[in-house]
């Protein structure tokens, strides 16, 4: 990606004119023709064209959605899976700000930024999927509140949580703009934002699971259960943390020039600690899965194609990564932690896709298979998100240390 190593680390070309400064910052830094850019630019252009077709000819013109399967890849992956991946932000702020585990502080800011961007772009995906996106204003301005709707509650918790994340992240923006007073004020709000952010997360993570509670007869009994909200929260803990592990390892390589030497030493110790969080979280999740399996008497379904698929998910992508996390914690094996986190993330994708798409209307005559356009749009959203993330990381103090005035100013 962007290897602007030749650029000075601490840009202090801020003139008194903030406007000029921002204009200057908008210009690209680093090389244009990187492998990532070469892949992502054509995808993004194709994606934008598909979006244009979607808005001029209807959702059906680019998707395979049907009257029986109204939610496809854009909801099942971008929103339902994406929310679980962004769960790292609330788990990590809980560890650092509430449990006061100082060890994890160096990665809080980048995790919060990732969470915020994930939510921002997944809501964009949601807007694409809405038949009448402009009418979303009905939910916000309150001329018709459907308070008995799970989706309404998820939507509002989602929206407020984005604000909480923005507040948690805002000191970094203030540092970038050299706004000392604003920074002092904004960082004073952090604890409140953290507390409400965690609460809102717990509720919208579980709410995403609760969305499917009414689809009782449509989801295969191996996946449907009354505890889906709880299962979604628990899996968002280790899913989110696995994303933090994977994303941290990648950005550490890509943005190497932004990091000082202390960070490299700390980073392995942080991953080691996180692996235990994942291992325990997955143990709880697996235990709950077994309880539900026994309680619902799901044994008869186990030896059927759907049953094998279920075992594939649980044994291969919950049990196996859990054992790897435990083992790597005991032996301090950092590369095994990374393997385990990738497996865990695949498991989260499998689980969310199973509930929202694969085991949904599992006995339908015509199965839903996403069109290539749906995949391209999904990729487009992810790529644009990475572009924005890269833009912010190369400019704001996310991975690198805050400017000196932050610590001297107290």
């Amino acid at each position, binding site marked *: 990606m962007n290897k602007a190593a030749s650029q000075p680390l601490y840009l202090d070309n801020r003139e008194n004119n903030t406007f000029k400064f921002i204009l200057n910052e908008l210009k690209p830094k680093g090389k244009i023709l990187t492998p990532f850019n070469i892949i992502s630019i054509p995808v993004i252009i194709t994606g934008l064209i598909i979006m244009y077709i979607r808005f001029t000819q*209807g959702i059906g013109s680019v998707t395979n959605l049907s009257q029986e399967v109204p939610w496809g890849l854009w909801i099942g992956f971008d929103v339902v899976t994406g929310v679980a991946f962004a769960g790292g932000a609330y788990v990590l702020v809980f560890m650092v700000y509430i*449990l006061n585990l100082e060890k994890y502080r160096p990665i809080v800011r980048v995790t919060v930024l990732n969470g915020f961007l994930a939510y921002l772009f997944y809501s964009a995906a949601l807007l694409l999927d809405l*038949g009448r996106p402009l*009418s*979303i204003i009905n*939910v916000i301005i309150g001329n018709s509140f459907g308070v008995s*709707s799970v989706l309404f509650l998820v939507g509002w918790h989602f929206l407020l949580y984005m604000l909480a994340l923005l507040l948690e992240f805002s000191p970094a923006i203030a540092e970038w703009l050299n706004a000392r007073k604003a920074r002092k004020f904004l960082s004073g709000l952090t604890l409140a934002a953290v507390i409400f952010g965690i609460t809102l997360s717990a509720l919208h993570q579980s*709410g995403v699971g609760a969305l499917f509670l009414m689809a009782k*007869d449509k989801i295969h009994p191996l996946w449907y259960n009354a505890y889906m909200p709880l299962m979604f929260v628990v899996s968002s803990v280790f899913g989110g943390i696995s994303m933090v592990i994977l994303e941290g390892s990648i950005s550490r390589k890509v943005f190497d020039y932004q990091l000082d030497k202390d960070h490299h030493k700390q980073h392995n110790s942080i991953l080691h600690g996180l692996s235990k969080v994942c291992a325990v979280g997955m143990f709880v999740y697996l235990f709950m899965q077994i309880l539900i399996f026994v309680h619902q008497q799901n044994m008869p379904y186990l030896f059927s194609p759907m049953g094998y698929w279920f075992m594939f998910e649980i044994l291969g992508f919950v049990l196996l990564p859990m054992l790897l996390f435990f083992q790597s914690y005991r032996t301090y094996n950092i590369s095994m932690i990374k393997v385990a986190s990738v497996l865990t993330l695949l498991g989260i994708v499998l689980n969310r896709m199973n509930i929202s798409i694969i085991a949904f209307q599992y006995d339908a005559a015509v199965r839903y298979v996403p069109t290539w356009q749906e995949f391209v749009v999904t990729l487009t959203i992810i790529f644009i998100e990475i572009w924005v993330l890269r833009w912010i990381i190369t400019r704001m103090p996310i991975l690198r240390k*805050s400017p000196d005035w932050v610590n001297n100013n107290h």
Partner: protein
Amino acid sequence: MKKIDRRFFLKAMGVTAATLAVGTSKTTAGDPAHEVGDLPELKGILFDATKCKGCYGCEYDCAWEHELTEPDVIDEDERRKTDHTRRTVVNKYNTSKGEVFVKTQCMNCNDPACGAACLTQAMHKTKEGSVIWRDEKCMGCRYCMVSCPFDMPKFEYHSTNPKIEKCDMCYHLQQQGEMPACAYNCPNGALYFGTRRELIFEANKRIVENPDLYYPHIYGEHEAGGSSWMYLSPVPFEELGFNTKIQNKSYPSLTKGFISSIAPVDILLPAALLGIYEATNKTKPGTYEKEELS
């Protein structure tokens, strides 16, 4: 910040818990719109499969009344479904008692899943019994379609301003004191329009008077918490392609537990988090400056 000692913390938790206990019992007791069971003045339509001759007239009446596409030449052996161009279809089934015709459309449930799902209240159960869809409120999220156990709301996927199509028992006609188009026009008396109370009485009467003719069950009396459309059949309902796995409790009752637990969590969790924060904060107050994100 005021120091929170254990006693204060427990007291605060106790008061919150008590408030919530009162709050939740109130929400489950009140709110008549979501009470499962028979609301006596709801209107409904009884479809009697023993009387339907399969003339498909109701499909034409429905299309005409709602300005939808007129049905093409109908192939009797094809199993058709409703979609965004037709709110109702009649299908032929070969059963143990010979040919039986069944009309399919939205059931207009007493406590509709779509209504509970809708976050803008575009799907709305009227006091007359119709479950209506309101154009100006809908944002096209299709959560109603995900939630409906009968898969009845249909979406216009190829429109830039898509509508949801489904039977609303001709709500606009009912408001003018008229009958739904299909029930008014049915030449064979297979569709009987009235209040749910009348319909259940009439259906039971028919079953009792002709025990050999009818299968002794009224589909829709209890299914999904009861619905405005109800069915009588000469054969078990599985033979007519009905979903007999539908639960008798209403579908919104499946999310009630989750929704009523939101308020307690919203109130209790921040208090608990603040408590944990204070408990794990090792430095004594005043001796250090808090570090922010670094």
